[in-house]
């Protein structure tokens, strides 16, 4: 019997059998998600780089001798060297200290915005999709209203007019206007989920609307929400950098990657390290987050097979 199979198998049959071999092992959902994520090489590499950057931003300042402030003993305009791995500025900043601080502020903004905006967006979308009818119409019109205005302009106006912005203010303002797209996606999913049997079962067992929305519907959209959150972080980081660049975001003496690039704008050829290093950090952060999101999308999609096609 086995002989027969061995002789007559094609590549696909072998693959199918190895797929069976994998699925016959008992695994929890989480294990499967992790296994699928680990298969996505680029995503794993991105996650590693991203963790290193997080460590650099949050643990780095504890270890490195300079922070983002001006010190008299720092020589001006040094290109990268052993004492100052990222070089120094004209007035006596150590760029590595500045980049650490800037990355930290940028990441904090990204995470807070992700929490806030996916939280609001998911709840908003779930409620609209669950109740449908007039509630849905009103709630989604509000989403339309916010989407009409370009987010950077809106955030720029608010951050600019309130002045004296800190990373926390910037995060709040971006978070309060970043959620409409999440709301749309979640609403779409909830509209189809609410018709399924498990919702009816929950209702038959006496679950109220709140319980159905938060315990049954939202967890089922978790995959989409997590992927969406990674996109939100990436957008938030770019918006924050843009704000700081225009001078309406995080203010001196604090710093952010956008602010660092703004000061180095005209130094592209004369002191290139000041321009390229903070820029590279923004790009690498956003790039890795996007790749992680890509990997998570595949990993959290239950329709994905355990074998590579």
């Amino acid at each position, binding site marked *: 019997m086995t002989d027969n199979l061995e002789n007559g198998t094609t590549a696909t049959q072998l693959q199918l059998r190895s797929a069976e071999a994998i699925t016959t092992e008992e695994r929890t959902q989480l294990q499967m998600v992790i296994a699928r994520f680990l298969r996505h090489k680029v995503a794993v590499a991105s996650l590693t780089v991203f963790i290193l950057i997080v460590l650099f931003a949050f643990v780095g300042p504890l270890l490195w001798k300079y922070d983002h402030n001006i010190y008299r003993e720092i020589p001006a305009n040094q290109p990268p060297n052993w004492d100052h791995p990222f070089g120094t500025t004209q007035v006596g900043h150590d760029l590595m200290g500045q980049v650490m601080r800037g990355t930290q502020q940028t990441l904090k903004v990204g995470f807070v915005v992700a929490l806030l905006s996916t939280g609001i967006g998911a709840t908003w979308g779930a409620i609209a999709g669950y109740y449908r009818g007039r509630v849905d119409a009103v709630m989604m019109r509000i989403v339309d*209203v916010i989407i009409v*205005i*370009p987010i950077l*302009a809106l955030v720029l106006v*608010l951050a600019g007019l309130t002045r004296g912005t800190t990373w926390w203010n910037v995060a709040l303002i971006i978070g309060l206007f970043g959620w409409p797209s999440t709301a749309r996606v979640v609403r779409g999913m909830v509209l189809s989920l609410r018709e399924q049997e498990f919702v009816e079962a929950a209702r038959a067992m006496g679950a109220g609307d709140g319980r159905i929305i938060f315990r049954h519907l939202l967890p089922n959209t978790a995959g989409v929400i997590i992927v969406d959150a990674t996109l939100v972080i990436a957008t938030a980081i770019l918006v924050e950098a843009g704000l700081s*660049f225009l001078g309406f975001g995080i203010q001196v003496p604090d710093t952010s990657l956008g602010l660092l690039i703004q000061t180095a704008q005209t130094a592209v050829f004369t002191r290139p390290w000041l*321009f390229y290093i903070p820029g590279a950090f923004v*790009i690498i952060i956003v790039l890795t987050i996007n790749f992680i999101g890509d990997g998570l999308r595949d990993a959290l999609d239950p329709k994905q097979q355990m074998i590579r096609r």
Partner: protein
Amino acid sequence: MPAFSIAPVLVYVLRRLVTTIPVLIAATFFTFILVDMAGDPLLELRFATPPVPDATIKAREEFLYLDRPTLERYWLWLTGIGDTRGDIGILQGKWGPSTQGAMDIGQEISERFMITLRLVGAATVFSLSLAVITGVISAVKQYSVVDNVLTFFGFLALAMPVFWLAALIKEAGIWANQNLGTNFATIGATSPLYYRMEGWDKFMDVVLHLVLPTLTLMLTGYAAISRYQRASMLEVLNSDYIRLARAKGLPNRVVMRRHALRTALIPVVTLAALTVSGALTGAVITETVFRWRGLGTFLTQAIAEYDAFAVMAFLVLAGVLVVLANLVADLLYGVLDPRIRYD
């Protein structure tokens, strides 16, 4: 087959415009309240040292309509009914008083709008074309080296901050001018002597000033749409009717252009409106880097001067532009997909 008539399309356009009016009005109300809460334009005046006489502050308040409650001020801004000076009421085409000296918001913004429109228009056209071309190539050559390289550059472009790329392109332009003898303009939308030029020179002047900023916006805007184009083209290429078209013996060129691309463009057209909105925000930053006197600098200046009515003017214009782009996208839908009817 019924003869093609333009009437249903017109009715559709009218109905769409009528339904967007409440959304736009709600959006203006919402932003008006936000702008109003965000900052007091007279803060500096109130706490100035030495103190400014009360009468001066009163006069300023009256000039900016700050002596009225917020809701009344919004009503006044929208309709101009109940105003005695005749400088406010957006529905009558009056944009309200400005804090920036004798600036007339309406005149200033319409001048600057034309400048920004050039940039946004060029950027939208070029980034959409680039997106469609790269997306289709990626899909047709799926998983090839070309596809992987294009995908990588797409992700890179998505991750690049507009201002970083803008500064880089500007400096590269300056470098090219100095070393390669090219003639890109890196500052402003036109040369200072533009008003003295004629015909061809005028046109070339505009083009040379457009090249670098358009390149910036094109590269930051195309990537997202390119990904959608790739996905949508892949879906179409794997469908039965494409197989049928090939089985009929149609040449590859015809299958691609007439059957595949036309259908694959439909989802992408929806995103065109998004591109306009993206180009507009991108323009705010790009104009700052390239020192254009366009809408972007208009906005940042208005914010710096606490010029609430000027900020509102920008937001209204941006909103209208996005709404119009959406409408155009919906109409293009009908051109591409004959199943869609406007009734």
